[in-house]
C-alpha cells in the first residue's frame, strides 16, 4: 500500500532543479501587459481630486483604469460585498487600491503609479481596539456572546479568582511567492486565469462578475503556490479581477504580481486580539468558570472576520473542560488592512487566551503549570488516560473500514469511560459538543516522559538559582483543534480520475498545492486504491473546468475532503473494471484483486495496463468523478450550539528557552513535540507540517511584530523590519514525533488533518518565556504577545515588582 508511507514531495525533483513553475514563471504570449495598483496614502477620508495625466503619459503605459472605468462588478469581497476592487472615492486604509496601471513591463507600471497627483479630505482614522469600541465601529450589530452554565454565580462562588488581559499581535503571512495572477483572453470574451490562490472557484466567481459573464466563461488553473498559509484564500481576488478587466479592455494578456512591499501594505494579515479574562478556580487549579471578552481588529472590510472570530470563540476552551463559560466577541472595523485567514483561522488566538489563564492560575497557586492543565483536561477516550501514555507505543489498532460513516463510530467510545474521575459534569465544550476522542492525557504523559520534564524542571530551577543574568524557562502547551469548516456547506469536495488505456492515471481534485504535500498524499490514496505505485499517477493542476464548485483549500481540510473524493472516484472505476474482468473470466467481481501493480482475477493475472486495455476494449468507462461531504455536522453560529467539527486533532509541546535579563533577548534551546495526525497518510510530510507550524507559531508570538503608526501606516512592510524566524532561530534541539493512534472517525485511511493544529504548539515557546520572566521575581510577569525582546524586558520588570 502506498498510504502511511514517507514518500518525498511529488514536486521535489522539480523544486531542487528550479523547474517547478509558479505563476510568474509561466511563459506569456507576446504583448502581455503588466499591472500595478496606485494606493491610498491616507487611512480614512475621501479623494478630492485624482490627476492621472502624468501616469497615462508615463513610458510604457497602455491603460489606466479608475473605478468609473470598470464595466461590471467593482467587488472583490469574499463575503459582504464591501470591498471594491478600486475605491469609488472613500478611502479606508493606507494601501487601498485607487487605480490600476497596465504597462509594457512590471517596472514601467510600478514607476508610472508614482506619478499620480491625488488630494484627500482626511478624517481621523479608527485604528485601535479602544477607538473602535468607543466609535461602535464593528461588523455585526453587537458582540457575539455564547454561554455555558451560570457563569456569574460560579465566579461569585469560586474560592479563587483572577482577572487579566493579554494583547496578541497579528501576523504577516510572508508566503515566499507573493500574490500573482495571469489572465489570457480567449475567443468569445472568455478568460483563462492562472492564479496563485488557495481558492480557484472564488477567483472564477469574482472574475466572472468583474467581466459580466457566467462562471462557465472563466477557467482558473492553479498548479502550485509558493506558500499560502491562508493569505491566498481571498487576497488573490483583486489581482485576478484587475488582470481580467484589463485583458477584456485591451484584448491582451495581463499579469500582475505584487512587489513585496506592496503585498505587505495591501493585503490582510492575521487578526490581532485583545482578550480579557475573569476566572474562578479551586485550590488545585481546577476552573469552575471563566468569562472571556475577545476583541479583534478586522480591518476595513469584512472579508473572513466573522468566521475567524467564531473560531477564536470555539477554541477558547482549548483542551479544558470548562464547567461554566461565557465568551463575548467584538468584531471591530478599523482603518487598517482587512485582516484575513491565517493558519488556525482565529483558533490560535482563542487558545492563547485560555493558555494564559492556565499559566496565570499556576503562578498564582504556585503549582506546576502542567499539573494545572492536567486537572482541567477533558475526560479521555478509552485507552488514552495519563497512565496509558507512559507505556511503550501500542500496536496500531486493527484496521477498520474507512468508507462507512457508521463503522467505527460508537465502537471506540461506546464504553462508559472515565478515569476514576471526579467530575460529574458532561464532557462538553462551551458550544455544547461532546468531546469523545480526547487523547491528550496519554499524549502529554508520553511527551513529558520522553522529554525528561521532571528532571529538566529541577535543572532549570537550579540554573536560575545559580545564574543572575541568563534565566531559563520551560513551557508546556497542548492543543485540541476542531476539524471542519464552520460554514457547514463548505465541507464538500470533488475529484476527477481518468484511467487511460495504457494504465496510467490522471488525477485531479479541488484541493490546491501550497507546499503542504496535499497532491502527494492524495496520489498515495489513488495509487493505493488501484494497488499501484504513485509513479502511475499524474497529479495535475487544480482546474475549475475539471472539478467545479470547490471549497478553499483551508481549515486543514485538504486531504480529508479531497482524499475521500478521490477514493470514491477511484473505487467507481475499480468496481467497473472488476465487473468487466469478472464477466470475462466467469468470476464474481469481488474475486478481482488490485494489488502490487497487478490485477488478479481468479487464476488469471495481468498488469494493471493490460487490465485497463481489456476494459477499454470492452467499452467500459474508465473515467469517474468522486464526491464527498463530511457527515454528521450541525452548527448554529448565532446560538453557539451544535457539532461544528467532525473530530478533534491533538498535539502537545514542551519548549525550553533562555532569556538575557539585561536585554530581553532570548533563544529557543529545545522543543519536544508529540502530534496527533491519526494514522498518517505520509509521516514525513506530516512531520514537516508540524515542524514548520511550530516555528511559524513561535515566530508569531515572539519576533513577528506588526507596527502601525498613528496615521495608520504599516511601518513593518518588509522582512528588514518584520522579523521572520530564520534558520538560526529554530530550536537547537528539535524532537518531533507523531502519536501512534488513528482517527476513531471514518476519515481517509483513519488519518487526521495536520495543516493548522500544530501551529498552536508554538504557544509553548511563549509560555516558556513567561516562565523565564517569572523566575526573576515574585509577581506575575504578565507577558504580552509578541514577546519581543522589549516585551520580555518589560515582563521581567513586572515580575520584579
Amino acid at each position: 500500500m502506498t498510504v502511511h508511507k514517507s514518500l518525498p514531495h511529488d514536486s521535489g525533483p522539480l523544486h531542487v532543479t528550479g523547474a517547478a513553475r509558479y505563476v510568474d514563471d509561466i511563459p506569456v504570449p507576446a504583448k502581455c501587459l503588466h499591472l500595478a495598483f496606485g494606493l491610498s496614502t491616507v487611512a480614512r477620508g475621501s479623494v478630492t481630486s485624482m490627476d492621472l495625466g502624468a501616469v497615462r503619459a508615463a513610458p510604457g503605459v497602455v491603460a489606466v483604469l479608475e473605478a468609473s472605468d470598470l464595466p461590471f462588478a467593482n467587488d472583490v469581497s469574499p463575503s459582504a460585498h464591501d470591498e471594491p476592487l478600486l475605491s469609488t472615492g472613500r478611502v479606508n486604509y493606507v494601501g487601498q487600491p485607487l487605480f490600476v496601471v497596465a504597462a509594457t513591463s512590471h517596472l514601467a507600471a510600478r514607476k508610472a503609479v508614482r506619478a499620480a497627483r491625488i488630494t484627500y479630505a482626511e478624517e481621523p482614522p479608527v485604528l485601535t481596539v479602544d477607538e473602535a469600541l468607543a466609535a461602535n465601529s464593528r461588523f455585526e450589530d453587537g458582540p457575539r456572546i455564547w454561554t455555558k452554565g451560570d457563569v456569574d454565580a460560579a465566579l461569585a462562588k469560586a474560592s479563587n479568582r483572577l482577572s487579566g488581559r493579554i494583547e496578541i499581535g497579528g501576523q504577516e503571512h510572508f508566503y515566499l511567492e507573493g500574490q500573482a495572477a495571469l489572465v489570457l483572453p480567449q475567443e468569445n470574451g472568455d478568460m483563462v486565469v492562472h492564479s496563485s490562490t488557495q481558492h480557484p472557484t472564488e477567483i472564477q466567481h469574482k472574475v466572472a462578475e468583474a467581466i459580466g459573464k457566467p462562471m462557465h466563461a472563466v477557467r482558473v488553473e492553479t498548479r502550485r503556490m509558493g506558500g499560502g498559509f491562508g493569505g491566498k484564500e481571498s487576497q488573490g481576488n483583486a489581482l485576478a479581477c484587475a488582470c481580467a478587466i484589463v485583458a477584456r479592455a485591451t484584448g491582451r494578456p495581463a499579469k500582475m504580481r505584487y512587489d513585496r512591499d506592496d503585498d505587505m501594505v495591501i493585503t490582510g494579515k492575521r487578526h490581532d486580539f485583545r482578550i480579557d479574562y475573569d476566572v474562578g478556580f479551586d485550590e488545585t487549579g481546577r476552573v469552575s468558570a471563566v468569562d472571556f471578552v475577545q476583541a479583534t481588529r478586522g480591518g476595513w472590510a469584512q472579508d473572513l472576520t466573522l468566521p475567524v472570530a467564531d473560531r477564536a470563540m470555539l477554541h477558547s476552551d482549548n483542551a479544558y473542560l470548562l464547567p461554566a463559560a461565557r465568551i463575548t466577541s467584538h468584531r471591530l472595523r478599523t482603518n487598517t488592512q482587512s485582516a484575513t485567514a491565517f493558519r488556525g483561522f482565529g483558533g490560535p488566538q482563542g487558545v492563547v487566551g485560555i493558555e494564559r489563564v492556565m499559566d496565570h492560575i499556576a503562578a498564582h497557586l504556585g503549582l506546576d503549570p502542567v499539573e494545572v492543565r492536567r486537572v482541567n483536561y477533558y475526560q479521555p477516550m478509552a485507552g488514552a488516560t495519563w497512565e496509558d501514555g507512559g507505556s511503550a507505543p501500542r500496536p496500531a489498532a486493527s484496521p477498520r473500514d474507512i468508507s462507512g460513516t457508521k463503522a467505527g463510530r460508537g465502537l471506540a467510545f461506546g464504553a462508559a469511560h472515565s478515569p476514576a474521575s471526579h467530575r460529574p459534569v458532561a464532557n462538553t465544550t462551551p458550544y455544547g459538543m461532546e468531546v469523545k476522542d480526547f487523547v491528550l492525557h496519554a499524549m502529554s504523559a508520553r511527551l513529558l516522559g520522553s522529554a525528561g520534564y521532571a528532571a529538566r524542571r529541577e535543572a532549570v530551577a537550579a540554573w536560575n538559582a545559580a545564574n543572575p543574568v541568563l534565566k531559563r524557562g520551560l513551557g508546556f502547551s497542548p492543543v485540541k483543534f476542531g476539524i471542519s469548516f464552520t460554514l457547514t456547506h463548505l465541507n464538500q469536495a470533488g475529484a476527477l480520475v481518468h484511467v487511460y488505456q495504457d494504465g496510467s492515471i490522471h488525477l485531479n481534485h479541488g484541493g490546491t498545492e501550497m507546499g503542504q504535500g496535499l497532491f502527494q498524499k492524495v496520489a498515495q490514496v489513488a495509487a493505493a486504491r488501484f494497488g499501484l505505485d504513485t509513479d502511475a499517477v499524474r497529479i495535475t493542476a487544480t482546474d475549475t473546468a475539471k472539478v467545479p464548485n470547490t471549497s478553499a483549500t483551508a481549515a486543514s481540510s485538504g486531504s480529508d475532503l479531497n482524499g475521500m473524493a478521490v477514493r470514491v472516484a477511484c473505487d467507481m472505476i475499480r468496481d467497473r473494471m472488476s465487473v468487466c474482468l469478472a464477466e470475462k473470466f466467469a468470476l464474481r467481481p469481488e474475486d478481482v484483486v488490485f494489488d502490487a501493480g497487478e490485477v488478479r482475477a481468479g487464476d488469471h493475472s495481468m498488469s494493471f495496463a493490460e487490465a485497463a486495455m481489456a476494459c477499454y476494449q470492452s467499452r467500459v468507462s474508465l473515467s469517474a468523478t468522486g464526491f464527498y461531504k463530511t457527515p454528521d455536522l450541525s452548527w448554529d453560529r448565532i446560538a453557539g450550539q451544535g457539532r461544528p467539527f467532525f473530530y478533534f486533532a491533538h498535539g502537545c509541546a514542551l519548549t525550553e528557552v533562555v532569556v538575557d535579563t539585561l536585554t530581553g533577548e532570548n533563544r529557543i534551546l529545545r522543543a519536544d513535540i508529540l502530534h496527533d495526525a491519526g494514522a498518517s497518510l505520509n509521516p514525513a510530510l506530516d512531520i514537516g507540517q508540524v515542524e514548520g507550524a511550530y516555528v511559524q507559531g513561535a515566530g508569531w508570538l515572539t519576533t513577528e511584530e506588526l507596527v502601525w503608526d498613528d496615521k495608520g501606516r504599516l511601518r513593518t512592510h518588509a522582512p528588514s523590519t518584520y522579523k521572520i524566524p530564520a534558520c538560526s532561530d529554530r530550536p537547537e534541539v528539535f524532537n518531533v514525533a507523531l502519536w501512534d493512534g488513528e482517527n476513531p472517525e471514518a476519515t481517509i485511511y483513519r488519518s487526521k488533518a495536520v495543516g493548522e493544529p500544530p501551529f498552536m504548539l508554538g504557544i509553548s515557546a511563549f509560555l516558556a518565556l513567561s516562565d523565564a520572566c517569572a523566575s526573576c521575581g515574585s509577581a506575575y510577569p504578565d507577558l504580552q504577545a509578541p514577546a519581543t525582546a522589549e516585551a520580555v524586558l518589560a515582563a521581567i520588570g513586572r515580575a520584579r515588582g
Partner: protein
Amino acid sequence: MTKLIMTVNGKKVSRDVPDETLLSEFLRESLRLTGTHVGCDTTQCGACVVHVNGTAVKSCSVLAVSLNGESVTTIEGLADGGQLHPMQKAFNDNHGLQCGFCTPGMIMASVDLVAKAKAAGRKLSEDDIRHGLEGNICRCTGYHNIVKAVAQAASEM
C-alpha cells in the same frame, strides 16, 4: 542599453540590456531561467541567490551590466547533466522543501557555504549551517530538514 556578455551555466550569452536591469530580471526575463525566484525584492529573503564566479550573490539587487564578462551559475546549471548535485539530492531526500519557492536560493547558498568551508579546510558544524543560512528565509519547513539536508550534502561534496 549596454551590450552584456556573460557566461551563464557554462554557456556564453550576449544581449543588449537596459542599464537598470537587475541580474534576477535578466536571468528570468531575457534568458527564461525562472528557477531563480524573487521573493522580497530587497535582498532579505534569499530566494534569488545565484553564484557569480562561484560565490553566492542575491541577484535581485545586482545590476546585470555590472557583471559584464563574469560567470554566473543558476539552479538550472547546478546538476551535472542528468545527475543531480549532492545538495539537490539531499534537499529532495531529506524533505528539505515544501512549497519549493525558497529552495533554489537555499540550495545555491548552501553549496557556497559548504564549498567555502571545504576550501578553508573546516568541517561544518550544525551551528555553522544554522548561522550560515541566516540570509535565506523559509516560511514552510521550520528549517529542521534543511539543516539535515545541508549536513548530508556536506559529507558528500
